[in-house]
């Protein structure tokens, strides 16, 4: 093969649009990746028709170059991105999403064979181009699908970060911070900022960091805890670390983690009792009037 022959795909796409759409719809309906529970036939038909139209226009305008970036391909990309995003929300798998584009292949190849008949070289050339094009578009949908899943994960992480760092007021001057989940640098930063802000707002003198919900404590976690305690101390509030499970106590000692002069208690109740003592408060039993 010397010079590239001009492609006939745009022409084929235009000429056989209706027939190809019928063929493609049949293929999609028969495919194992068809999710009748998630998307209706009418919707699928509308999406397929729109895609074919846009595809024909884009191939006509720009050929096969720059599918990922070219301006002429932007409508096709936008449409695929919309489909991909909506499908990822509806619960399609990446394979099921990409199958939308890939299932067009047999329909298109059939038309190419019909059109080019005996011209074996021409057929091969067109098939190669169409194959490459649809592969790229299919991969693009998979990519967008993955990105939208990642966006969901990121948002959930953010939500979790905010959810899992509440600062509760146990008593006048006593704050508690029940920590849940792994303590990494980002979490510690949020915890520290919210705690210090609440100390200012409430004028608390004692803060209890409860680590019952922290699955493991390693040297890094301990360092983060110590940082929080130190920062609170600098502002004039005392910190007590509570909720240290037996396994965690063992880990701390085995790792040789130095907690310094930080006060630690086994349970939140112990820490609260100590905080009350610090504020010269106490709990007494009320004698029941019925007795």
């Amino acid at each position, binding site marked *: 093969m010397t010079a590239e022959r001009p492609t006939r795909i745009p022409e084929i796409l235009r000429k056989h649009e209706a027939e190809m759409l019928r063929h493609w719809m049949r293929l999609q309906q028969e495919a194992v990746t068809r999710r009748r529970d998630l998307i209706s036939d009418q919707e699928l038909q509308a999406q397929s028709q729109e895609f074919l139209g846009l595809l024909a226009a884009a191939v006509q305008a720009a050929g096969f170059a720059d599918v990922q970036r070219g301006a002429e391909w932007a409508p096709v990309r936008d449409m695929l991105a919309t489909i991909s995003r909506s499908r990822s929300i509806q619960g399609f798998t990446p394979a099921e999403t990409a199958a939308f584009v890939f299932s067009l292949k047999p329909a298109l190849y059939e038309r190419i064979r019909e059109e080019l008949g005996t011209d074996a070289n021409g057929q091969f050339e067109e098939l190669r181009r169409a194959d490459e094009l649809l592969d790229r578009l299919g991969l693009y949908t998979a990519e967008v699908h993955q990105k939208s899943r990642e966006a969901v994960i990121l948002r959930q992480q953010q939500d979790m970060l905010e959810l899992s760092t509440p600062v509760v007021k146990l008593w006048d001057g006593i704050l508690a911070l029940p920590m849940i989940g792994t303590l990494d640098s980002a979490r510690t930063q949020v915890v*520290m*900022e919210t705690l*210090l*802000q609440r*100390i*200012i707002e409430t*004028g*608390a*003198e004692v803060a209890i960091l409860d680590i019952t919900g922290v699955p493991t404590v390693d040297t890094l976690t301990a360092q983060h805890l110590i*940082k929080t305690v*130190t*920062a*609170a*101390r*600098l*502002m*004039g*509030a005392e910190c007590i670390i509570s909720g240290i499970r037996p396994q965690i106590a063992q880990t701390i000692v085995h790792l040789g983690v130095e907690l310094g002069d930080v006060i630690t208690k086994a349970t939140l109740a112990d820490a609260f009792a100590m905080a009350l003592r610090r504020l010269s408060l106490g709990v007494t039993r009320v004698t029941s009037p019925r007795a």
Partner: protein
Amino acid sequence: MDRIPILKMGDLLLVTIQVDMHDQLALTLQDDLTDRISRTGARGVLIDISSLEVVDSFIGRMLANIAGMARVLDAVTVVVGMQPAVAITLVELGLALPGVRTALNVERGMDLLRGAVHDRSLEVSDDGRAE
């Protein structure tokens, strides 16, 4: 030259930092304060840094130094009103100010300081009686 005023209340000294601390100002404060402690025989120093929004390692070290010098001169130092951002910065800089007492506001700082000064004078009189 600007200076940070040092107020005397009985046997306590009161320092309120209400301007941006620059290095020279910090050094002058260090000089003035040590001078005043030794001249007046003050037993306690209260430093209010509630208006201090920005610290660097130098200012952080200076706070620790002042506390150390005051201790040598037999006075207790209490730092009050540290802003959250300042506290986080100091911790990240690794300046935990060991040996410096802290309180949330001036009122609590005063209580703490009076208590500390009282405790120390008791210690001294106890020692005196024992001898």
